[in-house]
């Protein structure tokens, strides 16, 4: 990469991909912590309070890494994408600032209370702390998705005579059809990560015959919430997102599906590698007419392929986009199968003794991370070559005076730092899982920062 544009893109892609490992778990876990805390409140059983504390500790580690890797994201709009920020800051600055003002203050204030304030707050107060941390993290997700949604489907703005993009309608910016579906789809993805992680830790305990009562709670919680999320992920949220893309980014749809030629009764490709030179899929396995049906609910509907658009309108990485989309959909399908089967076995009372199913839940744990990442890559690569769809090309958004050498310098710095961070994070989370939900019996660690709130 000799050109600054490519390095700036990789810079953002790398830092955001690494960052999103953490919020997807914390947003998902926040919901599950409210679930556990509600059970604790209803049953008045200390078991659920211990379970909550265990997950709150893991939440805390993830939250810390999420915070420190999140700060660079807000800065990078200005540092690496100054031309974009200058033109559109009056619009997307709104949602980004709202995230800081409404969610980060809320989250950071109540996380301390969730982690350290149980004695002081009492049962009901502590439930509220859990609830407000959930609310804060989900609000944060909303403002970020609203920002992205505006870049995908700009609305509620006006372009003035100097090319400056101004906010013209606040409600259109924060409430439109794109942000609704994208938000629902994103949050369900995060919930699935949380559910798979919780279920996997539970399965690990059951398979290794440790902390088994907790193992059952975690598997049950993860599967019950997870099955709902897995189904809703596909229908209606995934389906509706697909329709929005068909309506507003038809060239993106063609690239995602690897559809080079416009046709009536377009197929869905299950397998096949896009060949850009010959403009076809190699060794394809396809379901005939399926794409037409999914998009327009009509078997013989006409779907526009890449050939219907000039090549300078195509997403610039068609094969990668095709694969990220197929990985996302493929994994989503596997999640439905695993979760529905697990839920069925739970209902029949066989889940906790079925080693095969527990193994499946345990080894699935990296997959939702991959699916979430692939989903975001689909959204971002699919938007190319636009930075703001139809309004500003990606190439026109970079900082004009930040050269390729300085961009590499900082990208390499982030890579090194994040590698260390990733290793530390795995190490600390693994230790928590090893210690289990009853760490009082394990003596290897002294009290932490005390004084907080109690």
């Amino acid at each position, binding site marked *: 990469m000799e050109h600054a544009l490519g390095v700036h893109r990789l810079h953002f892609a790398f830092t955001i991909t690494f960052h999103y490992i953490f919020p997807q778990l914390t947003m998902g876990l926040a919901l599950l912590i409210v679930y556990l805390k509600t059970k604790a409140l209803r049953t008045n059983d200390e078991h659920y309070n211990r379970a909550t504390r265990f997950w709150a*500790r893991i939440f805390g580690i993830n939250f810390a890494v999420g915070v420190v890797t999140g700060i660079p994201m807000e800065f990078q709009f200005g540092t690496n994408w100054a031309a974009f920020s200058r033109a559109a800051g009056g619009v997307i600055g709104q949602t*980004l600032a709202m995230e800081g003002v409404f969610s*980060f203050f809320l989250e950071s204030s109540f996380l301390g209370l969730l982690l350290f304030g149980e004695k002081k707050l009492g049962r009901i107060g502590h439930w509220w702390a859990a609830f407000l941390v959930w609310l804060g993290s989900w609000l944060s997700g909303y403002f970020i998705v609203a920002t992205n949604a505006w870049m995908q489907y700009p609305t509620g703005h006006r372009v003035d005579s100097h090319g400056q993009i101004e906010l013209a309608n606040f409600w259109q910016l924060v409430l439109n059809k794109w942000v609704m579906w994208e938000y629902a789809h994103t949050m369900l993805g995060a919930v699935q990560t949380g559910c798979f992680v919780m279920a996997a830790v539970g399965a690990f305990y059951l398979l290794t015959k440790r902390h088994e009562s907790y193992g059952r709670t975690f598997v049950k919680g993860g599967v019950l919430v997870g099955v709902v999320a897995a189904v809703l992920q596909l229908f209606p949220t995934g389906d509706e997102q697909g329709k929005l893309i068909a309506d507003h980014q038809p060239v993106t749809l063609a690239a995602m599906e690897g559809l080079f030629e416009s046709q009536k009764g377009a197929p869905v490709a299950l397998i096949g590698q896009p060949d850009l030179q010959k403009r076809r899929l190699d060794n394809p396995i396809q379901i005939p007419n399926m794409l037409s049906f999914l998009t327009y609910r009509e078997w013989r509907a006409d779907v526009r392929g890449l050939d219907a658009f000039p090549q300078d309108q195509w997403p610039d990485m068609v094969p990668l986009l095709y694969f990220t989309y197929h990985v996302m959909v493929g994994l989503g399908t596997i999640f439905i199968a695993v979760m529905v089967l697990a839920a069925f076995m739970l209902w029949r009372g066989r889940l906790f003794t079925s080693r095969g199913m527990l193994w499946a839940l345990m080894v699935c744990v990296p997959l939702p991370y991959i699916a979430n990442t692939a989903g975001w890559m689909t959204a971002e690569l699919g938007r190319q070559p636009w930075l703001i769809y139809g309004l500003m090309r990606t190439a026109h958004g970079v900082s004009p005076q930040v050269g390729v050498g300085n961009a590499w310098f900082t990208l390499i710095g982030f890579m090194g730092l994040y590698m260390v961070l990733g290793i530390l994070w795995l190490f600390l989370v693994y230790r928590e899982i090893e210690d289990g939900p009853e760490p009082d019996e394990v003596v290897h660690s002294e009290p932490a920062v005390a*004084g907080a709130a109690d």
Partner: protein
Amino acid sequence: MGTLWFCLVAAMITVYVLLDGFDLGAGAIHLLVAKTDEERRQVLASVGPVWDGNEVWLIAAGGTLYFAFPALYASGFSGFYLPLMIVLWLLILRGISIEFRNHIISRVWDPLWDFLFSASSLLLAVFFGAALANVVRGVPLDAGGYFFEPLWTDLRLGEQTGILDWYTILVGGLALLVLVMHGALWVQMKTTGAVNQRSAKIASDVWWGVLLLTAVITTITFKVQPQVKENFVRWPLGLVFPFLAIAGIAGVRFELAKRDERKAFFASCAYLAGMLTSVVFGLYPLVLPARNPIYSLTVSSAKAADYGLKIGLVWWTFGILLAVGYFTYTYRSLAGKVVIAKDQTHP
């Protein structure tokens, strides 16, 4: 509308410096005031539950700056590319040092994080000071409204400046001393025993340096940035800001002598607030002065359209009131000296 947002952003940055300033300062003196593990836990406990919330003020201020003054955000952040990235790395190291340290007790684990916490805090204080000095001195903005500064050029105040030159280094030094004083006063207020005494000593020693550098830098600043003098001559009422700083710095000495720990810390807050507001007042209406004055960014040339600013005023006011509520609650529930509990499970 632009001027109002100029004041609001300045207020947010001031709050950020007052709050994160004390935990940065506490970090900078961490190794000096706390020798044993228990003492270090005292320092960490005094900032542990609040540093994250304090840092949110930086993010919220950044976001507010983004939507209210997009052109300033774009020029400033891309022009200060290198120091900002280094600041980000330091913030990352500092954050994990605080959060990860107490997960394991070991002869190699804790000292590593203690060192990183202290070193990153110290460097951040210097960089923040240098950044402020860059804004005051002015940057090499071009006709397109952009600039890029390397970390240093010839260390002189010429046309093509770097981030570091003799003026910005001097201000970086002042920022370090000020935050050391501020942090030491905070740690003094929150701790007991040896840590408390060592902090009091540091605050008292550093005070002279703060006084001296403040006087020197103020004199130089009038030369470096003529706008400052112009503003104070045009609106003498603005002298209330420097007077607040003077009262604050005098108050620190006075209260230290009286051993009133709370008032000494609040006097330090007054000094910091006075200094920052003086600078902001002195720069208005410039938001980013250029070395060549015709390219300077001003409130009116950098601000977003009025509709967005008006809408912003509604949700911003509401959101900040909520935030002030959370902070009041958090700081109230943490009031008093920290106690290191022995029987607590690790978080």
